[in-house]
C-alpha cells in the first residue's frame, strides 16, 4: 500500500511542492491519530483532503500550523517541509509558522470586536502598525473575501452582527490580510447555504493564483469542482493521493472508490 502511494507520488514529482509531508505520525497522548502520512501540497494549487469522519483530516491540517502545540500531550513524528524547512522541528517557532500559514476554521470564530479590527489583528500581531497600510490591507482582504460591498459602510460595527456566512467570509479575510503563503481551510462551507458556499468557492479559485490552498471537505462535489489534487484518508492513513480527476475516475483502492461514489462515509 505504501508502495502504491509512492508510485502515485512519483508520477507527480514534476510538481513544485509548497509543502511536503514525510512519514508523519501524530499522537493525541497515547492514541495515534495519523500513521505514516506522506503528501505533497503543490504550490498555487488547491489540494483537497477527503475521507470519512474521524479519519484524521482535521488532525493533519492542524499539523501544518502547529496548532497541536497548544495542548499538552500531543506529539509529532516525521517531517512537514515548508519550502524545504521542517516546521515540526523543535527549534522552529510555531508563531513564525503561523504567520506564514493561516487557517480558517470549520465554525466561524470572529473576535467580538469591530469588523475592521478583526481583519487588522493579524497585521498588528506582526508589528505592521502603519495606518495607511492596515487600511489598505483591510480593504483588499475584504474585497478578496467578497465581503467589502456588504460591510464597507460599517467597518466599526461588531463582527458578531454579521450573518453566519458573512462571519465566515470575514474569517477568510482575516486569514488573507497577512498575505500568507499557505491557507488551511477546515470544512469552511459546512455551515453555509449554497449561495454563500459558491461565493467562497469562487473566492478560492481566484486565490490560488497567489497562494497555496489545503482544504478539508466532506462534499465530493466541492472537492471535484474546486481542487486540483485530492488526498483520500482512511483511519489515520493516507490511502491515496492524486490529481483530482484521476482520483475520482480511476481510484486505486476499493475504499476510495466506495467513498467517492458515496457508498460510505
Amino acid at each position, binding site marked *: 500500500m505504501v508502495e502504491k502511494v509512492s508510485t502515485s507520488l512519483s508520477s507527480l514529482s514534476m510538481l513544485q511542492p509548497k509543502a511536503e509531508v514525510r512519514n508523519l505520525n501524530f499522537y493525541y497522548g497515547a492514541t495515534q491519530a495519523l500513521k505514516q502520512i506522506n503528501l505533497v501540497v503543490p504550490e498555487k494549487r488547491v489540494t483537497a483532503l477527503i475521507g470519512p469522519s474521524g479519519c484524521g483530516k482535521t488532525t493533519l491540517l492542524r499539523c501544518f500550523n502547529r496548532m497541536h502545540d497548544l495542548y499538552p500531550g500531543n506529539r509529532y513524528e516525521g517531517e512537514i517541509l515548508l519550502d524545504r524547512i521542517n516546521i515540526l522541528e523543535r527549534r522552529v517557532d510555531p508563531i513564525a509558522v503561523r504567520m506564514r500559514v493561516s487557517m480558517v*476554521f470549520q465554525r466561524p470564530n470572529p473576535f467580538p470586536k469591530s469588523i475592521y479590527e478583526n481583519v487588522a489583528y493579524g497585521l498588528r500581531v506582526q508589528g505592521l502598525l502603519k495606518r495607511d497600510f492596515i487600511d489598505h490591507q483591510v480593504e483588499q482582504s475584504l474585497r478578496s473575501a467578497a465581503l467589502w460591498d456588504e460591510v464597507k459602510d460599517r467597518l466599526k460595527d461588531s463582527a458578531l452582527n454579521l450573518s453566519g456566512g458573512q462571519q465566515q467570509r470575514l474569517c477568510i479575510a482575516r486569514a488573507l490580510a497577512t498575505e500568507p503563503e499557505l491557507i488551511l481551510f477546515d470544512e469552511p462551507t459546512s455551515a453555509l447555504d449554497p449561495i454563500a458556499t459558491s461565493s467562497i468557492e469562487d473566492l478560492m479559485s481566484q486565490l490560488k493564483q497567489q497562494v497555496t490552498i489545503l482544504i478539508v471537505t466532506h462534499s465530493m462535489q466541492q472537492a471535484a469542482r474546486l481542487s486540483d489534487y485530492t488526498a483520500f484518508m482512511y483511519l489515520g492513513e493516507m490511502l491515496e493521493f492524486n490529481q483530482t480527476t484521476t482520483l475520482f475516475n480511476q481510484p486505486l483502492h476499493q475504499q476510495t472508490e466506495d467513498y467517492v461514489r458515496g457508498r460510505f462515509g
Partner: protein
Amino acid sequence: MAQTDSAPPDLLAVQGSVSQRQLQDGLFAIVGLLTILVATIILLALVLQLAIQGFPRLTWQFFTSFPSSEWQQAGILSAWIGSALVMLVTAAIAVPLGVAAGIYLEEYARKNWLSALIEINVTNLAGVPSIVYGLLALGFFNDLLKLGESILTAGLTLALLILPIVIVTTREALRAIPNSLREAAYALGASRWQMIWDHILPYASGSILTGVIIGLSRAIGETAPLITIGALTFIAFLPPAPIQPSFPYISLEWLQAPFTVLPIQMFNWVSRPEPEFQINAAAAGTVLIGMTLAMNGFAIYLRYRFRRGVKW
C-alpha cells in the same frame, strides 16, 4: 369546545399534561417574583430608613469634622478618609495580584494535581471568617513585618481577604471565553501573552470587574479584622497628604498612619447611650452605602471603557 370533545383520548391526555406544565411554570414564576419583591423591598426599606434617619445630619460639617463627644460637633472626616485610603490600598494590591493569579491558574498553569490543590484551597479561602484574616495580619504584617497599626496593614489585610474572590471570579470569567477565540488568535500568530492581553482579558473584563466590586464592597464594610489589627475608634487627625507642596511632591507617609474606618466609627456611635449618636450612626451608614454605590458606578464606567473595543 366541540374540537376538544371530538379529540381522541390520548390527545386529551397530552393537553392535560400541557396545562399541568403551564401551571407549574406559572407557579414558579409567581413564587420567584414574590421572593425577589420581598427581598428588594426589605432591603430598600432598610436603606431608606437609614437614609431618612440620618438625613438631618448629612451636612458639610458632618463630613469635615473629627469625632467628638458632643454629638452636634462629631463628624466622620477621619473615618471616610480612612475608608477611602484603605480601599485604595486594598484595590491596588488585590486587583493586580488576583487577576494575575487567575490568569496564571487558568491560562498558564498545567492542569495537574498541584493546580487542583491550589484551586481547592483558593475556593476554601473565600469562605474563611474575616476575623481569622485579622489574626493572621496581626501576627504577620504587624508583629513580623513591623508595619504597625497602619493604613498599609489594613489595606493588606483586606486585600488578602478579598483575593480569593477576585481570583475565583477571574478564573470563571476566563473560562467562559470560548476556546475557538483563543485558537483564532493563535492561528494569526499571536503569542500567549498577546492572546490574553488583546482578547481574553478584554472579553472577560466585565465579569472580572463584577468580581472585583463584590470583593471591594465586602471589604469596605469589614470591621472585625481591622479592630483585630488595632484600628483606632477615636482619631482626631488626618494622615499626611499624599501630595506635598515641595519636592518630591508625592509622599507615601500616609501608608504608615493610624486610621479608623466608617464601619468602626458607626459601631462606636451605635454603642453610645445618647440617642443623638444613633442618628450620627445612621448618617455614617448612609455615607457608607453611598461610597459602595460610587464604587459600583466607577466599575460600570470602567467596564464601559474596557469594552469600547469589545463588541459582544
